[in-house]
């Protein structure tokens, strides 16, 4: 957000939006343009909707506020499945908390508290990019609250601190003073004119070899896998068809539109895959229809889903539909966990058509 916008907001408040718009497209300013026919004046409404950035001095911070306790509730629901309940992170997702005093260590831990120089960056980033796969879905109050929670977890502010536009630009981050401007070019031991060309070294000493470390992806990689899959696909597909025929009579053909469902699945794919057995933050959904709940190979399930597994609960169409409609309610009502505890932080699909479309797509793309 710009100085311009703040100034103009005052103008708008004083003179009214209509006066402002006419000013923005005044003929005098258009005459200064070399190509006035190209592009149009951006309206205040357009700018306000897209201009979401927040600068270190707090410029651009929107109305709203939040505290750490409020933020914790949102964080547990929408962030913890990747970043961990305490910001310790799962898998290779970013660690958000801790790491103080580690920057000179062999393995420094760069977190919000130990590394980030500005509090505004937390708000700016969450607002535009989080939750991963459901960006720009949080309200400004929620973003303030999560930011306050993360600052509190890193001992930067107290838990009763009310974070808002008036103070986000004044928070001092622990590592702020430790950033310096780029001094490169550096590491220039020898000038071009002095470069040795003959008999420069008495001996060659090998310090290390990549083949000993042995972390290079296997040969062929994705291409080889794809080729192998291609080769295996045809007979496998034929078999599946033959076997699937009787099952199709039991479960009615999905009423949904698989193409539309592909778009709905975009909300799921940050955490789930359909086309392989790979678990991400959530379990693989390959072949999920008909599978016993809690049995994706190698996935660590929460208590509620393990209880459902023990009961022999299956992923029928109805159960999948109920889960995607509201994971919390599903865990409460279908599994019987009174608090609806699940790590699946997805609010749920409200429209029946979305659910039908999603199921149709999931079946087509590997779920069945």
């Amino acid at each position: 957000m710009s100085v311009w916008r703040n100034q103009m907001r005052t103008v708008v408040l004083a003179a009214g939006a209509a006066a402002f718009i006419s000013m923005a497209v005044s003929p005098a300013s258009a005459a200064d343009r070399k190509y006035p026919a190209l592009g149009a004046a951006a309206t205040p409404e357009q700018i306000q909707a897209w201009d979401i950035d927040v600068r270190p001095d707090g410029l651009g911070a929107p109305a709203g506020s939040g505290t750490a306790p409020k933020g914790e509730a949102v964080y547990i629901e929408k962030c913890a499945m990747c970043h961990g309940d305490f910001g310790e992170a799962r898998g290779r997702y970013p660690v958000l908390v801790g790491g103080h005093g580690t920057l000179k260590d062999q393995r420094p831990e760069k977190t919000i508290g130990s590394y980030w120089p500005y509090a505004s960056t937390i708000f700016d980033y969450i607002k535009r990019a989080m939750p991963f796969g459901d960006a720009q879905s949080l309200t400004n109050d929620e973003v303030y609250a999560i930011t306050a929670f993360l600052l509190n977890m890193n001992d930067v502010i107290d838990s009763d601190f009310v974070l808002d536009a008036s103070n986000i630009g004044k928070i001092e981050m622990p590592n702020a003073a430790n950033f310096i401007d780029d001094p490169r070019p550096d590491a220039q031991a020898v000038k071009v004119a002095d470069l040795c060309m003959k008999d420069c070294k008495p001996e060659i000493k090998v310090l290390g070899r990549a083949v000993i470390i042995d972390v290079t992806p296997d040969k062929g990689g994705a291409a080889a896998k794809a080729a192998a899959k291609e080769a295996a696909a045809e007979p496998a597909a034929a078999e599946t068809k033959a076997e699937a025929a009787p099952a199709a009579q039991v479960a009615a053909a999905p009423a949904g539109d698989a193409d539309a469902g592909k778009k709905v699945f975009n909300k799921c794919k940050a955490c789930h895959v359909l086309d392989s057995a790979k678990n991400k933050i959530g379990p693989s959904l390959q072949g999920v229809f008909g599978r016993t709940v809690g049995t994706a190979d190698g996935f660590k399930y929460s208590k509620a889903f393990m209880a459902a597994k023990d009961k022999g609960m299956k992923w029928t169409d109805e159960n999948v539909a109920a889960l995607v409609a509201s994971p919390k309610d599903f865990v409460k009502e279908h599994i019987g966990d009174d608090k609806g505890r699940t790590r699946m932080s997805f609010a749920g699909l409200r429209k029946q058509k979305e659910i039908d479309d999603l199921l149709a797509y999931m079946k087509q793309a590997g779920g069945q």
Partner: protein
Amino acid sequence: MKKAKSPVTPGNIQTKQSIGSSEPVVNSSRRRALLAGLGAAGGAAAAGLIAPARAMADPANLPPNVADWSRVLGPGVDAYPYGMPSKFEKTVVRRNVEWLTATPESSINFTPLYALDGIVTPNGLCFERHHGGAAEVIPEDYRLMINGLVDRPLIFTLDDLKRFPPVSRFHFLECAANGGMEWRGAQLNGVQFTHGMIHCVQYTGVSLRTLLEEAGVKPKAKWLLVEGGDSAGMNRTLPLDKALDDCMIAYSMNGERLRTEQGYPARLVVPGFEGNMWVKWIRRIEVGDGAYMAREETSKYTDLMPDGRSRRFTWEMDCKSVITSPCPELPCRKKGPQVIKGLAWSGRGKIARVDVTVDGGRNWHQARLEDPIMSKCLTRFYLDGWEWNGDTAYLQSRAIDETGYVQPEMAALQAVRGVNSVYHNNAIQTWRINPTGEVENVRLA
């Protein structure tokens, strides 16, 4: 054009580390089995090497016989409305290193440099780096907004952008983290993985200066926020003087429209600066009087030094080079003449000279640079006439740019920066050719 001395041969260098035959070059019995199965004479399976489709030629296709393709009709025109590489080149693809990142939507893959000639990267092989997956922007619904400290906030359609006077230029794009896994030692065995976060294409678009002049930048302005339309809303701060110098909003690469994964329908081009700033699917440029300090220029893309302080705004890509053949993916199959070729580049201008050694830096030979040599663009170099006699050899290249900057050894970089700075590793790379002909990534003292 520089002339190379030729021929050059490596001395029979004894190393402190044993390179006796008992030392397994490839520590995998599966690979040895593959070798046996292929019946190949030389070492054909360095780690990461993609095995050819077939080990030996079929005599039925060789003279005095006449191959089928010389007798029968091939596919007609339009059999492939958009042409693809030969099916025999299927293994030449971008590849990733799965353990590097949490999820492929926020990840990176690598350009197969070993398989490429010249200086232009084919569009489909340009490495990808996404922060929220590749956005599929509908071209009719694409908009670019310029707001902030300007006389006239403007919004452009894609058609508007294409109606401005176009400019076309060749530039490399290198991720600041290219080589970032190699700070502590040789780790990945393949030039695709050690140096593949780079590509070089011809961009066509409109000069960013032209667009900023249309909006009218106010005198107080010093910085731009550039922001993508992807689900990460990728944002970076760009200094205004760079924006007015040589940046552009590109809508084409190598003559065709941008690929989805490269920012279709429009991306920012910031010649010589780290790839993270080349915002794809660009939706907004805000002009301001202060830096924005986005996540990608504070938490990431800052370089941690041994004293615990971090360098920020490390935009320029230092001068660098690498030998792309031979390399772990392209072993020396036979003794005798070898093609030594490589790429050199600098974010500060043109490449002035490249030196190549085959004996680990004991003796250096000036490489032949191939035209065209352009600013902030890949330059192809060759060392002609090298005969490999079957002894262990250590290949390196050292680039020098027009500012007089000399590509450093890793020890010189580490002396200043330690091993935790992640970004901007432009150290000299060593490939060891073993007596078997296999080539591996090693770190020399």
